[in-house]
């Protein structure tokens, strides 16, 4: 072993820079950039879609996971009386029992007023949590805002620790005391998200306001659940806690820079900022084994025939929970130019196109649901039908079964709207599905027929598809096969 100054320097540099240059490491985030087509038209103005996808590896052992700080905010209004509250208590107990000694938890109950049932503390400090949860009983109205406020206050007690902060809200009804507008609760959700508090919402039964619940979760990209039968509450709590314990990275910030001949003009289905030649999109958290993506619309005009230019440069900043470190990933997208339109058409990347279409569809669904709420059911139905048409067109060109299925789904919902058959349950299913598709969380729609939670990722379902001519992420294939590819929807009840 020759320990000369060069090798020492090399070792020192690797140690210092190593954490910042995680590209090929199996235990780090992976980023990939793709375009919706393989080639761009030279010197012609065109609109293209860039997809930036980020994938997190599985988080390995519980000893390595960061501590969590959770607050369970439980609805104890009169309508929760009976089995609903009993199952909620069971779910809460199961969730708390999964926590570790360095975790922090609290329980808030709300009906006409909100009160702290278990103040923020560790398992040691709150050793009597089981009896305290047993004491809960249901009576009164629903002061949802007060419940969330008090829950956030409990979480704040441990906010300075490097933990995963999560507020899990359970509700079975409309908020009838205090603020009840989705926009207003959405603002609260945005602020909490800035603070570092993610909000997951669980709606049980037919009576809760799914717009409100998704808006609360939206900004922090927390999960939102529609549970039709309270019997499934314990498994939902388990599922949510599983995610909380499985957070890989937080505060993921995606920045994509474009050259002056490619102007970013919009983001599909996500919130973010476009400044001049770059797009900045925050992704709140990413769970182990999860893949999230961002779609950016760009106006491209430039390039010469035969040239290959760099279209986009992506930088991903993220923090690993549990420590103060932040990391960066970089990637770039090079695209060849051609004057042959046929070549461009032939090179279309059906996966990205699918994502683009599905994401546009979620925006159409949002709009349709908004119109429906305003009472303009006809216009809402038209919106869905138009989206279905678009989906069908692309499905035909790309022979994409998934888009076809989606189009059928949209047609079915449109038919429901036209004949006034979009009942509260269907609306909840649609809204929750849509939200999950936009944030790329797994779907959690638990209906009466199932005994277990069904989890499926709409974008990773197995079916025969034309293989695009690009290298596929080997991880994605593995994930596809291990996840249960049941595409059953409970729309026709």
């Amino acid at each position: 072993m020759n320990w000369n100054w060069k090798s020492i320097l090399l070792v020192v540099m690797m140690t210092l820079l190593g954490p910042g240059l995680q590209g090929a490491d199996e235990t780090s985030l992976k980023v990939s950039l793709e375009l919706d087509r393989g080639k761009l038209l030279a010197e012609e103005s065109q609109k293209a879609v860039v997809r930036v996808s980020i994938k997190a590896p599985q988080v390995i052992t519980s000893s390595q996971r960061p501590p969590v700080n959770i607050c369970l905010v439980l609805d104890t209004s009169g309508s929760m009386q009976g089995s609903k509250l009993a199952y909620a208590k069971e779910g809460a107990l199961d969730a708390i029992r999964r926590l570790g000694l360095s975790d922090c938890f609290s329980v808030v109950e709300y009906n006409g007023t909100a009160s702290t049932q278990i103040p923020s503390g560790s398992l040691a400090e709150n050793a009597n949590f089981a009896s305290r949860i047993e004491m809960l009983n249901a009576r009164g109205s629903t002061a949802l805002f007060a419940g969330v406020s008090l829950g956030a206050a409990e979480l704040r007690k441990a906010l300075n620790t490097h933990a995963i902060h999560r507020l899990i809200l359970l509700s079975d009804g409309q908020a009838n005391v205090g603020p009840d507008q989705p926009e207003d609760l959405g603002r609260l959700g945005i602020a909490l998200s800035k603070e570092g508090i993610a909000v997951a919402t669980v709606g049980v039964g037919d009576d809760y306001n799914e717009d409100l619940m998704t808006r609360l979760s939206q900004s922090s990209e927390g999960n939102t659940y529609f549970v039709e039968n309270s019997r499934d509450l314990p498994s939902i709590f388990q599922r949510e806690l599983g995610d909380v314990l499985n957070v890989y990275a937080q505060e993921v910030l995606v920045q994509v820079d474009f050259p002056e001949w490619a102007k970013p003009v919009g983001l599909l289905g996500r919130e973010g900022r476009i400044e001049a030649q770059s797009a900045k999109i925050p992704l709140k958290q990413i769970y182990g084994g999860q893949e999230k993506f961002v779609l950016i619309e760009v106006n491209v005009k430039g390039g010469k025939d035969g040239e290959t230019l760099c279209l986009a440069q992506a930088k991903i900043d993220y923090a690993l929970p549990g420590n103060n470190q932040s990391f960066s990933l970089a990637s770039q997208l090079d695209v060849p130019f051609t004057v042959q339109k046929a070549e461009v058409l032939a090179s279309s990347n059906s996966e990205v196109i699918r994502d683009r279409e599905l994401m546009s569809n979620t925006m159409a669904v949002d709009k349709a649901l908004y119109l429906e709420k305003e009472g303009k059911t006809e216009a809402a139905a038209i919106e869905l039908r138009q989206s279905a048409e678009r989906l069908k067109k692309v499905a035909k060109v790309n022979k994409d079964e998934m888009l076809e299925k989606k189009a059928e789904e949209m047609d079915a919902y449109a038919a429901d709207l036209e004949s006034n058959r979009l009942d509260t349950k269907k609306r909840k299913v649609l809204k929750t599905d849509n939200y999950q598709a936009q944030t790329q969380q797994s779907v959690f729609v638990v209906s009466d027929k199932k005994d277990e939670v069904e989890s499926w990722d709409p974008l990773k379902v197995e079916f025969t598809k034309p293989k695009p001519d690009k290298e596929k992420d080997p991880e994605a294939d593995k994930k596809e096969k291990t996840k249960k590819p049941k595409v059953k929807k409970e729309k026709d009840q």
Partner: protein
Amino acid sequence: MTGPHKRMIYFGMLCIAATTMAGVATYWLGKEQARLESQLGRDTRIKAQALADRWVQAIEATQTAIMTDLRVRFVNGSMEDLFAYRDARPEIRNVFVWEPLKGATATLPGQQISLDETRFLQRFQGLFSTDSSFGRTRVADQAQVSATNAAFEVETFGWVVWYWEDQFSWLGWIMQPGLDTRVIGVELESFYVLSVALSRQELASKDQVLYRLIDQKGSVFHQTGMAQAGETPLLELPMGKALPGWTLQASMSGAVGLTSDLFVWSARIVLILLTLAVIFGAWVLQSQANREFRDARQKTNFVANVSHELKTPLTSICMYAEMLQSGRVEDEGKKKHYLDVIVQQTQRLTRLVNNVLSFGRLEQGRERFHLRALNLKDVTAGILTTQLPRIKEAGATLEMTLASVVAIVDEDAFSQVLLNLLDNALKYGVDADGRCRVEVELTDTGKMAVLRLSDFGPGVPPSLQKTIFDKFFRGDDSLTRKRDGSGIGLSIAKLLIEGMGGTLGYQAQQGYGASFVVALPKHFQKSEV
């Protein structure tokens, strides 16, 4: 009778006194309740004010912190820093920069304006739309002028509460006249700031009061305390300039109001019951006294009557015995007559004394019956036959219709009863013509032997048909005044008959006057051994 009158007066006075005391006590109870309520109201007001102050203080603390940041870090700083501050602070919804002639912008230069930024400008259009001055007329009264150490740099800053289409916002602004009157400011995330402030609700716990924060539209924004409180608002406090138009309402728990009501009402009920008990006690005492007075009177009357009844035959006996003793009577027939009278009157005396003795024994429960099965026909006929002279002497007639029936009787008691009844008939059973007819009927009904003794006199009026069996009772004076009587004959007869297991009653009959019915058992009853 002054006795009873006096007693009535005393009783009346007692009632009045008791009622007055109860009334006064109730009045004072009511006052006490009012005092308690007002005390509660004062306490609640203090608590409510403390809660309102706590909330306002939390809001103002946030405002001060943000304003300090603006003043210290951003008013001379870069735009990038200001917008980064917005993105980092949950309390801040938007930031803006306003310049005269340029108006306001809420977007970082170079960035695309976002939806929320657009809406922000829309919301505050009314404030930003004045050209040359930053709505000076609107904000002037809220401006706080503070001189810094650099005397020529005068900062003006302040907070505006802004309403737009029912939406409520806090806008903080700071102006530097030295720098082309550029104004920077923030719009607070009002729902977040309120959320943080309102979760400080420890003051309201463990209380019987519900505190409600009511917004400018009149709807409940937040409530804390006892949710089951009733809808009777005790008080309403304005929230101050941080939340203009908002109020804090405190209402009592229905349960508490109920408890104090319960106390007052139960106290009232106790008072009423007490008063009633006093009145009732006095009434009982009074009627007891009355009864004893009446009993005493009755006894006095009885003694007088018995004495009188004793005296009359004794006088005859004495007179006739003296005459015989004197030897002046020579006529044998007259002698016999005088002796008859003496014997008769003696018998009468005996009867009376027997009655009195029986009465005494019956009253003390010492009467003993020797019951035997006898043929009542024989017994009745035997007794009445011995009375025939007396009956004839009285100018009355006797008719007997006797069936042969065996009954269980004490012979002496039965004869006493029969004689008492006969006595009454002879005394009071005189018809309008002055004649007296007595009918005695003995029948066998199967179970009982029934003897009926009737006269053809005026009878007994229905109202007195029960009371004639009461001891010492002698009916109304018009009839009985004419004749002697002790008033105990019928009561003795009834007690004797009942003691033998039979019944004695009055039975009004068509065509008759008074009619008394005796029923006696034909067979031994189990209880009579």
